[in-house]
C-alpha cells in the first residue's frame, strides 16, 4: 500500500510530517526499544511505536523506514518532528494503541515477513 493510502484509511490520525515521496509499503514492525528495532526491523518497513525521542528518526533513517506511526495518541517530541521533516520520514500520531493499530495494518495486508 502507498503511505498516503495507509494514512487515509486509518482513523483518528494526526499527520505531523507528510511523506516526501509516496512509496509502496508491504512490511511492518513494532517495538519501542530502539536497539531492538535497529537489530530486528526489516528495511523499508513501516514502524509502530510509542517511543517519541529524537533518536527514532536516526533509527528510521538507518533502517530506511519511510513511515513512523506513534500509537496511543503519543505526540512526537519537537526535535523528532523537526528531524523527520529534515530527513523526509513520514510521521503521524494514531489514537489506537499499538495492539489494535497492528491489527488494522495487518488487515490492510502489511506483514512483518515478506510473502
Amino acid at each position, binding site marked *: 500500500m502507498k503511505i498516503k493510502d495507509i494514512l487515509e484509511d486509518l482513523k483518528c490520525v494526526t499527520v505531523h510530517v507528510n511523506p516526501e515521496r509516496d512509496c509502496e509499503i508491504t512490511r511492518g514492525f513494532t517495538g*519501542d*526499544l*530502539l*536497539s*531492538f*528495532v*535497529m537489530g530486528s526491523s526489516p528495511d523499508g518497513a513501516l514502524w509502530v511505536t510509542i*517511543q517519541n*525521542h*529524537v*533518536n527514532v528518526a*536516526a*533509527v528510521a533513517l538507518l533502517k530506511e523506514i519511510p513511515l513512523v506511526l506513534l500509537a496511543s495518541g503519543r505526540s512526537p517530541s519537537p526535535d523528532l518532528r523537526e528531524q523527520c521533516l529534515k530527513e523526509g520520514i513520514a510521521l503521524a500520531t494514531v489514537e489506537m494503541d499499538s495492539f489494535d493499530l497492528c491489527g488494522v495494518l495487518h488487515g490492510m495486508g502489511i506483514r512483518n515477513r515478506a510473502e
Partner: protein
Amino acid sequence: MELFHMDLHIHTVLSPCAELDMGAPDIIRRCIEEHVDIIAITDHNSSRNSRAVKKAAEGSGVEVICGLEVQSAEDIHVLCLFPDPERAALFEEWVKERLPRILNRPEKFGDQIEIDEKNNIIREHEILLVQGMNATADEIIERAAVAGGLSILAHIDRPVYSYIAVLGMIPGDLKVDAVELSGCLSGDEALEWKAKTGGRNVIRTSDAHRLMDISLDRTTPVMLERPSFREIEMAFKGESGRKILWPWGDLRTPMEIYQEGDLPMK
C-alpha cells in the same frame, strides 16, 4: 595527586531488590575490607538512606556521596549524584512529585526500608520505588545539572534500563558527565562498549545489591587530591590533573604513565 578507588553505584535496604545485608555500617565495613575509598549510595528513585550511610562512614576514611538511581519515563536508569545530602533530598522531591502513586507490595517486590546510621528502622517507604518517573532521561540529566549534581548513564551494556537499549545510541550533544559499564564485563567487552560512548568518561561500578557484590575489582581508579564530590567533578571535566583512569587496566604504555605523573595501577 593520589590514586583512589571509587564505586559510584551501591544500593541499600531501601531498594526493594537489594538484600537485607545492605545496612549502613555493613556497607562501610565491607568497603574498608575491600579497600574501596569512595562510594555513592544510589537507591532507586530515593536518596533517603544515603544520609545514613554517610553518617555511618564518619571517621572510617570512606567517602560517601549522596545520590539516587532515577528511572525515567522510558525506563532508563540515570545515576544522579550531589555534593551534599540536602541537595540530594531537594532533587528527590522533584522525582517524588513525578512518581506514579503506586504502592509497594513488599511480598512481591521486596522491602523498602529507611534506616539510620545504626540500622534502626525509621519507616517503610510506601510508594513503589522501582518504577519510571514522569520525566524523560534527557530531562533528568538536565535537571540534575541545574540542581548542582552530576549525572551518569547507568549500565549502558545491559539489555534493559539502559540508555542505549531503549534509545539506540547516545546523542552527541547529551550533557551527561559519564557513562557506567557493569563491573562484571571483561576488558575486551568493556573496550567494545567504550567505542559507543562518544569519548565520554567511563566508570566501572558494582551496582551492589548485596554486600559480596562490593569489591575492589568492580571499582574505578581515579587520580584526585582528596576524596570528595568536587574532586570527582573535576576528574570528570579533566581539570587540574584530576582524571578517571580506565578501570580494566591502563591502556597507556608505562612510559606514558610515567610522563603523565600517575602512579602505576594497583
